[in-house]
């Protein structure tokens, strides 16, 4: 039995390593062959996968309806930007009020900056989550939404740290496919391990019935904070990657529509499904770009249509409504897409096929 188990483990480990090598070879190939626009979209896909998974942990698995994700992303993006920008650029960007020391003279590598960004937003996540999780459902949503707005207002007004409404420009473009997809992979790994562990079961128990979970000895405060902090950390690191990808950030980027976008990805994929989040974050990020044609003026059947900014969001809203109508729990519900589901599908297919022959 143990021999069999360790054999199994070895096989899994070899498969995992082989898969990873293949994956990074693919990234390398894409990085050298594809044009910058497509690479950028792929980067965005990876970043949104990570952030959506974070939101899904809090809103989907633990059932804590939080709307503060944009706030955590802002914290992460600003932290990373402030740590990675060079002192010269900082001097140039902060022309109204100089940046306070020691931030004005430091420049860190990308990895430590991202780690610090994750820690800071995790900490903020705890500070926000600890009092807010006393609320339930819509009330929690409202209070966390309020928090995200507070973050934005604070960032707009602390000019000597964040450069206020002018935002930050000239952030070094550190983010590449390796960084963003490593982040996405790590998020998937953490989510898979966490949700299948007994901690994950406790989170799902809280989602299904808080009173019963507490009566079974689940510490509500600890587990809700856990969901909040992990979620905020993922959003923070994702925000940091995003900032160093687009190289310009300002407080208005982190308004409610950003939270809405991430929430839409999680809901369409299915709250409580990891593969659902991955698929839907990828599809929506690509669709966001593909649907840009809708906003451009063009001639259809001889009729001139002016471009309407925001048409993309109309399409997404309609898509969201349709999905809620036909798949109330999102495309995946709380199921996962894995080898097993393919096997089941194949089995079902075979069965129907053999039926027809009889």
């Amino acid at each position, binding site marked *: 039995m143990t021999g069999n188990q360790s054999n199994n483990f070895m096989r899994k480990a070899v498969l995992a390593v082989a898969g990873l090598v293949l994956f990074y070879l693919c990234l390398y190939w894409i990085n050298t062959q594809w044009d910058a626009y497509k690479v950028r979209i792929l980067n965005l896909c990876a970043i949104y996968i990570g952030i959506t998974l974070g939101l899904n942990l809090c809103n989907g698995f633990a059932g804590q309806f939080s709307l503060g994700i944009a706030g955590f992303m802002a914290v992460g993006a600003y932290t990373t930007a402030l740590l990675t920008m060079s002192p010269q650029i900082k001097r140039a960007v902060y022309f109204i009020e100089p940046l306070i020391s020691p931030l004005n003279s430091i420049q860190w590598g990308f990895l430590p900056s991202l780690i610090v960004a994750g820690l800071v937003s995790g900490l903020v996540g705890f500070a926000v989550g600890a009092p807010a999780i006393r609320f339930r459902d819509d009330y929690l949503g409202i209070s966390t939404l309020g928090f995200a707005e507070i973050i934005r207002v604070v960032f707009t007004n602390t000019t000597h740290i964040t450069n206020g409404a002018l935002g930050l420009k000239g952030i070094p473009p550190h983010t590449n496919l390796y960084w963003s997809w490593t982040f996405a992979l790590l998020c998937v790994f953490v989510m898979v391990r966490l949700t299948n562990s*007994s901690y994950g079961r406790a989170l*799902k128990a809280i989602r299904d019935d808080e009173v019963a*979970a507490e009566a*079974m000895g*689940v510490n509500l405060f600890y587990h809700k904070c856990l969901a909040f902090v992990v979620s905020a950390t993922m959003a923070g690191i994702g925000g940091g990657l995003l900032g160093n990808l687009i190289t310009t950030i300002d407080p208005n980027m982190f308004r409610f529509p950003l939270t809405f976008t991430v929430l839409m990805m999680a809901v369409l994929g299915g709250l409580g499904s990891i593969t659902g989040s991955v698929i839907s974050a990828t599809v929506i990020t690509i669709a966001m770009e593909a649907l840009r044609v809708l906003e451009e003026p063009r001639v259809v059947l001889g009729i001139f249509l002016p471009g309407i900014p925001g048409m993309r969001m109309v399409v997404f809203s309609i898509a969201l409504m349709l999905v809620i109508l036909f798949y109330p729990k999102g495309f995946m519900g709380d199921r996962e897409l894995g080898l097993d589901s393919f096997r089941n599908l194949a089995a079902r297919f075979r069965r129907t096929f053999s039926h027809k022959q009889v």
Partner: protein
Amino acid sequence: MSKNNDSVLVCENIGMQFGGLAAVRNFDISIPNRALYGLIGPNGAGKTTVFNIISGVLSPTAGRVKLFGEDITGLTPDEIAKRGVARTFQNIRLFRDLTVLDNVLVGHHLRRKATLGEALLALPRYRKEESGMMHTSRELLEAVGLKDVAHYRASALPYGQQRRLEIARALATKPKVLLLDEPAAGMNPAETEQLMQLILDIRDRFNLSILLIEHEMKVVMNICEHITVLDHGEIIAEGTPSEIQSNERVIKAYLGGGTIARH
């Protein structure tokens, strides 16, 4: 019988006031080890309130709850569960979207020693704990007769099985005292019969004390050793099943006062 020395759970003079309403007044009970006690009374008598106080959902406005002599009054439900009091709910409260097995596994979580980091990296201590939990959970499911449906969603189970699952989940916390809130509600006679046997088995096998709220008199009178009757938040009678059955005040509380009977 000495009342306090060998008692597992003791309620002293508990009172619960909701605004102007006294839901429970001067409630005393002392449950010995391996005892099977019943708590009965008409609807609204305050039985579930007593359960909520013992399990920490409510904090009593008067009196103390003691478990093995330790004062547990006002602790949070999860702390009380850790100290060895488990319960089921009158209106079934399962983790609906989890599998039957996962429901029971949640009950084990409070004894988890492996940290979050160990769980994320699947380190040996976590894996060992997990397989141990899996093993005991399957045993528990077998004990309540749900082994074959272990991978069903809890919400997919028929009513009687959901009640059994609640009991299995409560047992997973390794309680010293088990509070069962109307376990036979909604069961047919055959299921009720099985349930009575199950409750007796559980008591013997897991070596615990059981306090039971039940409206089904057949269950209470057959398996309880001692019954406490509540009416309007106050204890109106205590004693063995036969004493309770012949008690004037109990009959009056259940069937109404003499004036109505004569009318």
